[in-house]
């Protein structure tokens, strides 16, 4: 980050946009006391200040809502909010007072939260509200939201922005970090664009367009490429068929109820739905991570009774999971080792039980080049890469398997504009090649843009199936919320 100036006034709604690694998070971390500036100053209310730690930032009324929530799942809302500054009575935690105080804060800012519920039983959207309440409870006047909608449904996002707007009209300043230009423009009054550690522009929101912002974030390159290049293509034989398939969640609840669907060669099938309606389990089911409890599963017309991840891979199923740190990569291992994962027993990654380090290096380097993975070092520990680049490692590896069925869940979450375009382009290429793609995404725009066909999941059931010609955002929205009877195209 280099020579960036920024001014935030009470009531401001400022958005910060830029690619992965453009310095947005660094800038905000300076503001939140996590990093120290090498040069330059920070002033609050006209007086220069030094922020040595988040504690100093909080004392100045700066609150941050991180992309990954910092909540303790087994504690209640109230306990999480007061964590670190618990009210005590004679040295003992005074839980009643904590609840009363948090309730008061919720009321004051119009949050309808039940303060005695445990975090783990809340939806992602509500958890985020808890994070905001936490910041407000500590007296935050400036609220930093780091990619707040990455995990939210459209409805939840709308509600978040409503709340944020109300806060700003009550005199709070809100800083929004986001990749989604649409929401940036609808929410912010000012937009600051970062590129390669510099602030390249600061424009009033009403005077700019998504195209202009996209062009500014990536520099000379053109903005988000549409995937209009998709040829109308006749899909081939089915690669995946589910017939009245049923399975359970990890804690034993029914996750999928008699789901029947199919994916054919050369088509992208999107799964739309509000988070937690069985998409996760569907992806795990067809990749062999979760057992089938009822119904039938066929891969390439062959019925599979007991699918495990190894068999799934041998049958040509590749998987880009949602939680890559849990399911897809080994953080402490190098990029090249991670690229070999899943095919470590095959050439060019090994021969006769011995690791072929030269073959592995070559393949890793070519994927690093193709996908512009940064830093371009095959030996770097994967955990040192930014989230977007980790995702590129996973996507490049899975596509390199030349799969017959590609299961992708939230493939572009947290990626910048250029990387999103790259991933979308590669998915389209897989489709052209004749691969069947099962796309699960909470970003409805993404599902609409890429899919040939969409199934809507609600409560573990398929509530609708739509062909591309009959895509209708409103209708899908109603199906996602279970507000319309199941209909099939």
């Amino acid at each position, binding site marked *: *980050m280099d020579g960036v100036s920024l001014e935030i006034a009470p009531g401001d709604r400022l958005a910060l946009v830029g690619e992965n690694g453009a310095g947005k998070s*660094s800038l905000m971390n300076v503001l939140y006391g996590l990093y120290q500036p*090498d040069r330059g100053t920070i002033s609050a209310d006209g007086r220069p200040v030094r922020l040595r730690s988040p504690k100093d930032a909080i004392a100045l009324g700066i609150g941050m809502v991180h992309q990954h929530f910092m909540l303790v799942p087994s504690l209640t809302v109230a306990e999480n909010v007061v964590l670190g500054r618990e009210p005590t009575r004679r040295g003992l935690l005074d839980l009643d007072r904590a609840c009363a105080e948090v309730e008061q804060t919720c009321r004051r800012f119009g949050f309808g939260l039940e303060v005695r519920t445990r975090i783990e039983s809340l939806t992602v959207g509500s958890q985020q509200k808890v994070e905001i309440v936490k910041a407000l409870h500590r007296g935050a006047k400036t609220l930093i939201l780091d990619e707040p909608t990455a995990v939210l449904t459209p409805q939840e996002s709308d509600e978040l922005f409503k709340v944020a707007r109300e806060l700003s009209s009550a005199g709070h300043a809100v800083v929004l970090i986001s990749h989604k230009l649409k929401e940036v423009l609808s929410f912010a009054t000012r937009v600051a664009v970062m590129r390669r550690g510099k602030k390249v522009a600061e424009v009033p929101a009403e005077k700019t367009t998504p195209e202009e912002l996209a062009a500014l974030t990536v520099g000379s390159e053109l903005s988000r490429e549409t995937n209009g290049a998709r040829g109308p293509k006749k899909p081939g034989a089915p690669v995946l068929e589910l017939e009245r398939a049923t399975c359970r969640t990890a804690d034993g609840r029914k996750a999928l109820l008699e789901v029947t669907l199919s994916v054919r060669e050369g088509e992208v099938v999107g799964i739309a739905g509000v988070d937690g309606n069985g998409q996760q389990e569907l992806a795990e089911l067809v990749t062999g991570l979760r057992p089938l409890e009822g119904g039938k599963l066929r891969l390439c017309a062959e019925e599979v009774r007991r699918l495990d991840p190894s068999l799934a891979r041998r049958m040509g199923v590749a998987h880009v999971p949602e939680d890559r740190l*849990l399911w897809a990569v080994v*953080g402490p291992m190098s990029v090249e080792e991670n690229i070999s994962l899943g095919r*470590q027993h095959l050439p060019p990654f*090994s021969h006769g*039980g011995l690791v072929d*380090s030269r073959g592995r290096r070559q393949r890793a380097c070519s994927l690093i080049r193709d996908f512009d993975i940064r830093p371009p070092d095959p030996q770097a520990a994967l955990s040192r890469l930014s989230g977007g680049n980790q995702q590129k490692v996973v996507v490049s590896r899975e596509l390199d398997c030349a799969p017959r069925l590609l299961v992708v869940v939230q493939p572009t979450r947290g990626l910048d504009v250029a990387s999103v375009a790259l991933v979308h382009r590669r998915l389209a290429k897989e489709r052209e090649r004749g691969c069947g793609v099962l796309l699960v995404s909470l970003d409805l725009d993404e599902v609409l843009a890429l899919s040939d066909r969409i199934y809507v999941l609600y409560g573990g059931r398929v509530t609708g199936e739509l062909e591309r010609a009959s895509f209708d955002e409103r209708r899908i929205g109603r199906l996602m919320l279970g507000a319309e009877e199941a209909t099939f195209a």
Partner: protein
Amino acid sequence: MRERLIRGALPSVLSVAAALLLCFAAIAVVAASAKVALDAYLAMVWGGLGDLPRFLDGAGVAVLARPWGEAATKAGLLALTGLSVAVAFKAGLFNIGAQGQMILGAIAAAFLGAQLELPALVHPLLCISGAAVAGGLYGLLPAALKLRRGVHEVISTIMLNWIAVSLVENWLVVGPLRARASGDLSISGTDEIAATAQLPRLLGETSRLHAGFLVAVAAAVLLHLWLSRTRLGFETRAVGLAPEAARASGIPVHGRIYQAMALSGALAGMAGALLVLGTEHKFPATIGAPYGFDGIAIALIGQNHPLGVLATALLFGALRAGGTRMQLFGVHKSFPELIQGLALLFVAGRMVWDHLLALSKRKRPAEEAPRA
């Protein structure tokens, strides 16, 4: 590559250095004399690495060879138990059971060594193999309990240690395998092993340096190559670091855990064989020395890297062999163990190191720029 190696080893080296300094200071304070501490330390060094000053005075090779033998014997045992703990760690398990697996290996080696009649080179190899199998099977038990019944391996291996002691020392050694009394002399422990089963001495009779040391060194090198160069080693590391990701990529996680625990038990069992075939020449009434537990410290100080474990074992083997010489200066011989314990404590305090390193890095200018 080299830089990464140095940076990886740094916390261990610093920890050992800090432990050495602290103990030095402790001796100096208690004895109220830095001279005593220095003398004691020198005695420890010459006692472990060979008495170089006396050798230069023309005292003969024995003053070098004898300490080498003591140091190498101890180092070999520490290396094998350390590797045992380390390989389990690589698969994500905390094997506290090296002591029990070692006892099983020792009794197997003692039994095979006494009962079989085989030519010289084959006999010890067979005994070591038998010990590895016994230890390996014993290591499979906690793995099976964990994978089938969800019993945490720390609990089960601690209990299995006591079962091993009871089974071997309180039953076999005083019962079915008790040494046949010769005349009216009652002998403790099992029968002496056959001369063919004894590990050959490498430096003649004055030094107890035996071929078992080479077994330990070979084990460390082979384990390193296995972990870093083979597919199974890679898969084992993946299982240890991220079991869910390993499962999702088609690696048989349970298979790798069984395999790693069998290997872990086998290495500890080989340590038992070395003790019997190289030093004791029978299973004594009791295996007093807790080499299996020392293995935990050696593995952690060596950061579970086979070569790091070997280096750590060599260092502490030498310090312990030399430690007995400290008594000449009124310093208790358990100081090497104290040094080992302190070094372990400092390595375990690695989070503190990391924090300090991170702090010094944060003060360095503008390298933080691009991070999403």
